[in-house]
């Protein structure tokens, strides 16, 4: 741009002066662009989706490029032996990863719900390139750590990319499962009969059929309406492309897998007959089990995010009507998610059981209900985003979107096929890369906005400061010591749910000194009129069963006898532990 201007402005000295004046403006704009388009050491496009191998390679490249903050481990193997990859992002010079509150992010637990993995890759990509460059993120990265599991269901991802599929086939992991109880495993999947790489819909011309082509668009099938007269062909819809592979009279009834990894978590887990696809018992699958162990080994996780598709939702638990969360937690959820609704246009903040459907044993149900971690599930991409308006695009409008925006690339028009059982039929329908995933050009926006939401979430993790320490002589060697413990962020150091479930170590505030005897210890509601609420036992160590609440502070007081230095230390698994030291002498 500058060189073009240079040429255009010629070599006149007067113009040069004018240009120099202009330059001031242009330079700052150009520098501004560089400011927020910091290059990464890893070139990565976010207008496409990556398959299993590519995701592994990208993760390895990212770690190779940023070894000082990013590390990678294989925490297990999937049913088919693929890697369960976990990454840790931590600025080591500000402390080990488990000394800071952490945000855990995963994606792609449902094999076909793929684009969350790209959001995870984007998050890693953006954070690594921004450290030391973007002040907001640098500050955040200095005080929190991040754990990523980009593919919870790597078998499902590989299957969805590599095999003929629809947008919705299939959620499951790929452990062979006898869905129909005949002793055969995965013996009757959908079949790509015409070998075009897609699983399409089948229709057959049938004088008694109850479907016809819509007058609006021949590709749309509508029910035959007795009132409509006219000359039209009738059709019978025959379901997904396939045959009765095992000859039991049913088509496509036992495809790959046949369970739901997102019903295999311990919180409110229910057996199969109550919650379909839940598996033999909680954590019965290698994928969920390895992640369960990973999370339980990290009590510093204070926030969690799972990416799914689709529908444009920010979901939180509970998953079932009879489960309730403490009010002090729901206020935290509300604050974060309401911000999310603004950051993520066309996304709605909903509770899983009331806004979507009842889920027993989901991932975020476990993290939020059993572990008290503030957790969200985002359903990426909404039907409102085809035309960026508050109403979902109709089927007709989606076809138009395919025609005029994507040049017909996402829909296969009806074509003839000779089916071994049904005879002359037609195949047609949506390709898999549509409906549940955004068009390629919208992937980056999806990635960035969701990344921004999780950064807001991450920044709400506890940040504790000890302030206003006050020492007053009570005569002789006896002192009254007061300290305010502030949590400057929204998420409490112990959530209501963690306190209720008694998960993780308890927070405490402890006073100590080389020559100091603690006479009493406790809290004050305020510094002026409130009585000293003291504890009966061990006054030096004050246990905070419900932690430090978010966006607030609590006043602690000790009566001590002694002299010299005193140190007050705050400890919590979900906050950086802090201490303050002062001398026992009158102020």
């Amino acid at each position, binding site marked *: 741009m500058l060189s073009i201007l240079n040429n255009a402005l010629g070599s006149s000295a007067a113009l040069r002066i004018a240009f120099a004046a202009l330059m001031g403006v242009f330079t700052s704009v150009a520098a501004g662009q560089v400011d927020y388009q910091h290059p990464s050491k890893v070139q990565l496009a976010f207008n496409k989706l990556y398959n299993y191998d590519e995701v592994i390679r990208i993760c390895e490249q990212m770690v190779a490029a940023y070894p000082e903050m990013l590390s990678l481990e294989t925490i297990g193997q999937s049913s088919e032996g693929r890697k369960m990859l976990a990454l840790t992002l931590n600025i080591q010079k500000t402390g080990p990863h488990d000394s800071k509150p952490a945000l855990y992010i995963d994606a792609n637990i449902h094999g076909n719900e793929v684009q969350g993995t790209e959001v995870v890759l984007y998050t890693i990509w953006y954070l690594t390139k921004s450290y030391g460059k973007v002040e907001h993120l640098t500050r955040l990265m200095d005080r929190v750590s991040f754990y990523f599991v980009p593919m919870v269901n790597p078998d499902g991802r590989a299957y969805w990319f590599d095999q003929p599929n629809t947008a919705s086939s299939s959620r499951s992991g790929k452990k062979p499962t006898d869905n129909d109880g*005949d002793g055969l495993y995965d013996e009757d999947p959908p079949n790509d009969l015409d070998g075009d790489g897609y699983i399409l819909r089948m229709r057959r011309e049938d004088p008694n059929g109850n479907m016809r082509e819509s007058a609006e668009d021949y590709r749309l099938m509508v029910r035959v309406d007795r009132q409509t007269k006219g000359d039209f062909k009738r059709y019978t819809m025959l379901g997904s492309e396939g045959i009765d592979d095992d000859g039991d009279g049913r088509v496509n009834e036992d495809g790959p897998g046949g369970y739901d990894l997102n019903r295999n978590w311990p919180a409110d887990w229910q057996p199969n007959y109550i919650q379909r696809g839940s598996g033999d018992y909680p954590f019965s699958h290698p994928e969920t089990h390895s992640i369960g162990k990973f999370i339980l080994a990290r009590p510093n996780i204070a926030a969690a995010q799972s990416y799914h598709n689709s529908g444009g939702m920010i979901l939180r638990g509970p998953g079932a009507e*009879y*489960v309730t969360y403490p009010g002090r937690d729901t206020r935290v959820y509300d604050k974060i998610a309401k911000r999310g609704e603004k950051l993520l246009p066309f996304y709605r903040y909903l509770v899983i059981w009331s806004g979507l459907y009842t889920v027993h044993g989901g991932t975020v149900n476990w993290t939020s209900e059993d572990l008290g971690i503030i957790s969200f599930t985002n359903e990426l991409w909404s039907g409102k985003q085809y035309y960026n308006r508050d109403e979902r695009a109709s089927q007709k409008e989606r076809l138009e979107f395919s025609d005029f925006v994507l040049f017909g690339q996402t829909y296969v028009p009806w074509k003839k096929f000779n089916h071994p059982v049904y005879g002359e039929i037609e195949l047609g329908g949506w390709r898999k890369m549509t409906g549940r995933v955004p068009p390629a050009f919208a992937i980056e926006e999806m990635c960035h906005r969701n990344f921004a939401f999780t950064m807001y979430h991450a920044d709400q993790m506890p940040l504790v400061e000890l302030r206003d320490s006050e020492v007053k002589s009570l005569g002789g060697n006896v002192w009254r010591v007061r300290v305010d413990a502030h949590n400057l962020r929204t998420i409490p150091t112990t959530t209501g749910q963690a306190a209720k479930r008694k998960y993780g170590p308890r927070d405490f505030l402890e006073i100590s000194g080389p020559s100091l005897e603690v006479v009493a210890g406790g809290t004050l509601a305020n510094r002026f009129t409130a009585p000293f609420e003291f504890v009966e036992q061990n006054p030096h160590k004050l246990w905070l069963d419900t932690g430090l609440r978010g966006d607030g502070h609590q006043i602690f007081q000790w009566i001590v006898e002694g002299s010299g230095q005193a140190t007050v230390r705050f400890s919590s698994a979900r906050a950086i532990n802090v201490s303050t030291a002062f001398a026992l002498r009158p102020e």
Partner: protein
Amino acid sequence: MARSLFRLGLVLCLSATSCAEPQPPPVGSRRPRRPRPRPVVVQPARPAPTSAVPMPAGPIAAPAQWPAGYHTFTQLSAALHELADGAADATKFESIATTAGGRELWTLQIAAPGDIPPENRQAILIVGGSDADHPAGSVIAVNVARLLVEALATEPDGEVAALLARRTVYVVPRLNPDGIESFFETIKRGARENAKPIDNDRDGVVNEDGPNDLNGDSRITVMRVRDPDGPWMVDPDEPRLMKKADRAKGERGVYKLMTEGLDDDGDGQINEDGPGGVDVDRNWPHLFESGVKEAGIHQLSEPETRALADFILARPNIVAAIVYGRHDNIVKVPKGKQRGPAGRAYRDLHPDDVKLYEHLSKKYRKTTGLEESPGGEADGAFYSWSYAQRGILTLATSPWWPLEKEEKKKPTTQPASGPAGEDPDEPKSDEDAVPDDAPSVDSEEQRPPDRDEIRARFQERFGNRQPTQEEARAFFRSMSGGTAQVRVQRGGGPAGASQRGRGGRGGRGGQRQRGRPGAPGDAGAPSDKPDKDPLAGHVEASKVNKRWLKYSDEKREGSGFVEWTEFDHPTLGKVEIGGFAPYFKTTPPADKIDPIAEKQVAFLVELSELFAAPRFAKPEVKDVGGGVWRIKLGLTNDGYLPTHPAIARHLRMPGFAVRPQVEADRLIGGRPQVSAANLEGSGGSVSWQWLIRGQAGESVEFRAFNRVYGEIKTSVVLRETPPGGEGE
């Protein structure tokens, strides 16, 4: 580059069945059994039994050094090794897990060599030592295994050998080896937990405040502490026992109860973080008590429980299980009633299985002579999981009950020790609880109505009128009893939670308050029982405790009860220490073990004879002309037990899939595959018809498959059968 090529190769390899390590079966291949996890085989691999001779050729030597009485883990391991070695072709001995304490989780498969491989025979699973405060359960399981193996040699024509020729017996003799090992420690605690270190009070220090043997009698009992606010007083009839003061009668409580011990860590609480661990019999998914430390961080979180779950899942041939321990559901059969937050899980038995259990109970009581039981607590217990979530007919039993039967007295002649209106015959403490502690509600009422019933009631309620949405919603809510029940339980209050909260209580067994967890996420874990002192079982003057005391006095020289003695407690001042001795009520004298095991073996024989015996019934064949034959064929069950008990149907366990083995174009009528959800016992049958084209005299094969019973085949000859079918 080389690395990425290698990676590519690896991934390609993983997706190809030929070189992948965990091989998925080829699509469409018949694989009647699940892939089996490969456990550590401790014994050197033995040649697979190939002989068709039902009995082993040589005599089987009984172990020379069978340890008498209770076995330490080392003794148990050696004895099992020897037992398995002595009958190598009839046993398979392997460890399926290692505990936190470094002990092996042994399993022993017993099956006489024969045509049908052990994994294809209907099997009984025996589990002992799940309850660590019940070491007798483990020892009885081991001795049952020994008697079974010995009988193969000593009585090759006996009924035990006959059982083992047709069935497989899997024995898991000690599910909680860490916990049971504490029985052999000098100081007896009655611990239930395994050796996994747990920070019960969440103070960052593990196992720092367990119970202490203050009076030096090597037994952890109860401290009664003078306290004007305490709820307990000395029972006027039996001064060794305590009762809760009834203020309505002007009685005053003067004691509170605590487990014998000190505040080791000086946090103001006594015994709140003792040794261990997770109670492996509270770690199972059915009615799991989420949020209770001793129940585990999540369901099947322990190596013991997860390994046994996988062991069972890999053996669908297990049709029945017997569990020796603290629970019972067979001497006293629970009422079938519904419970569970999702509203559809049965707490104990499916109502339609109650009759079946009552029949088994009759046989069991007759054979074993047991007439009373300590009851069962389904929450997170193994026996309740294997029944309620796997559909296995599971019998839990506490096989030792030394108390003599008492004449039932009229309630009016009995001094009421409980709250007014309570039946004095009802045990008061948790430990004494009998299974039907539930309100005596007719099981019919508790059962969720099935679809037809709902339809009928809907019709009754609304006739042909279309109900409004509100009405319909209210109606269906009223139909699903579970939801309504949950609502009620919510009011239960968190009282129980604080009782159990810090857990610990020094691993004291037998008397921990078993709160019923409400819906997960509800405040605390509301209890639907009135709050009870967790130590009550050790000192309360309940009717059953008085009988135990009598038994101790008359038959055990008073060894079962530690007389109250004064002790100068460093933080509590003068206290008294006493109460029932740990293990006294669960642990028979060593010489009683053998007779108990013998009776259990006798019952095993009886039970195995009741198993379902599905087979194809005689076909009816009719020539309908044009080379087409009508075949009527069914499955029938010659055994006593149904192939699928009500619980298995409730769980939607797959039934029998039946298919004629003919090409599609020869099947003129009927379905290519039909199914039967269940075959009732004693001749229950399900049949189907097909039209099949073929030559007269030609054979058509039919196959039925079920994951439990395997594959059943029959050949039907296309020749008219005389009318009447299977009438013999």
